[in-house]
């Protein structure tokens, strides 16, 4: 599957368990496959994949919230990472993901796109928003992530 890495990165940020991750991953793949004929070359493939992946994840999350399945979040990282939070080999990356999951849904999308080195305009296109306030928002999210991660990564 081309762009699998993009999908994995996004789905991991929106799920708390391996089971959910696999469901979200499959749903995103399915949605991409279903809408591949509608792809217009106004944007590149990766932008399109980001957009679909984020849309699907946000929709599934909303459905889950409506079903009453929500996760308790706080601004404190757990002392010990559970097996489910050890999705990647890199421990620092696992910690970063746990911190990202503490952010709001939209902030998660913004920081993921920022870390993927998307330009503010591309981020605005993907999230269908205005590019003007993205820089300020990203810097606030980074500050918050640093605070969450502070003391955990040396």
């Amino acid at each position, binding site marked *: 599957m081309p762009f*699998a*890495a993009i999908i994995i990165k996004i789905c991991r940020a929106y799920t708390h368990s391996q089971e959910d991750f696999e469901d979200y*991953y499959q749903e995103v793949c*399915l949605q991409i496959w279903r809408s591949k004929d509608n792809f217009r070359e106004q944007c590149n493939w990766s932008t399109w994949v980001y957009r679909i992946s984020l849309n699907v994840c946000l929709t599934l999350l909303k459905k889950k919230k409506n079903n009453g399945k929500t996760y308790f979040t706080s601004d404190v990282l757990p002392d010990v990472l559970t097996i489910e939070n050890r999705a990647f080999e*890199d421990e620092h*990356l696992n910690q*970063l993901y746990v911190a990202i999951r503490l952010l709001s849904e939209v902030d998660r999308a913004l920081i993921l796109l920022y*870390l993927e080195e998307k330009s503010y305009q591309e981020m605005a296109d993907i999230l269908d928003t205005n590019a003007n306030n993205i820089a300020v928002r990203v810097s606030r999210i980074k500050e918050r992530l640093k605070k969450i991660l502070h003391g955990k990564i040396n």
Partner: protein
Amino acid sequence: MEKSIEAIWKEGFLNEKSLGAPKINDLYNQKSKHLVDKVQRMFRINLLIIIISAFFFPIVYYFLDALWEGLAASVLLLLTAWYNKRQMNSVKTLDQGTTSLDYLRSLDRWLKDVLLRSEKILRFSYPLYFLIAMSTIWSAWNKEGLTMKIHQKLPNLLFVGNTPLFALIIGGVTTLLVFYFSDKICQWEVRLMYGRVFDKLEATIAEMEKLKQEV
């Protein structure tokens, strides 16, 4: 020294190919299960409605002073419920195949088969329901002295028992029409109740077949 989040990200994803992506062979398993559960749930709800109606009808008909008609409708409904329950049990014997596509195909075949058999049975039960309804209406009118009034107003009218011949002819022709169009009524009723889920089943099978060809 603390690592920046950008560095953590970059270093963590140095080798993107090693990322463990779930296999997508199972892409539709979850969907198929959901769909099959939905079909079975709808069948169960339908069965429950039939059983409740079977107990409800005699009570309502009792107050309409047509207990026998109510009991006849109730027996007919209970027989329908019994038949539907048998059909529901037979879904367990479906060939689950090796893939969810096989299972969905056999579910689709099973549904078509069940509907075909139901159409044959409903060919007789729809006219019976109609006759019960007509009999109820006629007995209610009778109790209000309608037959007497017709007798007085139209003394030359032919009667069979207590019923005017023209009413019997109209009732008979309508019953024959209900019998003739029962398959259409059945299809319309099924479409109304299960249309969306059946469409979804067909669309899922078509998608899975297409996916199978392309992957």
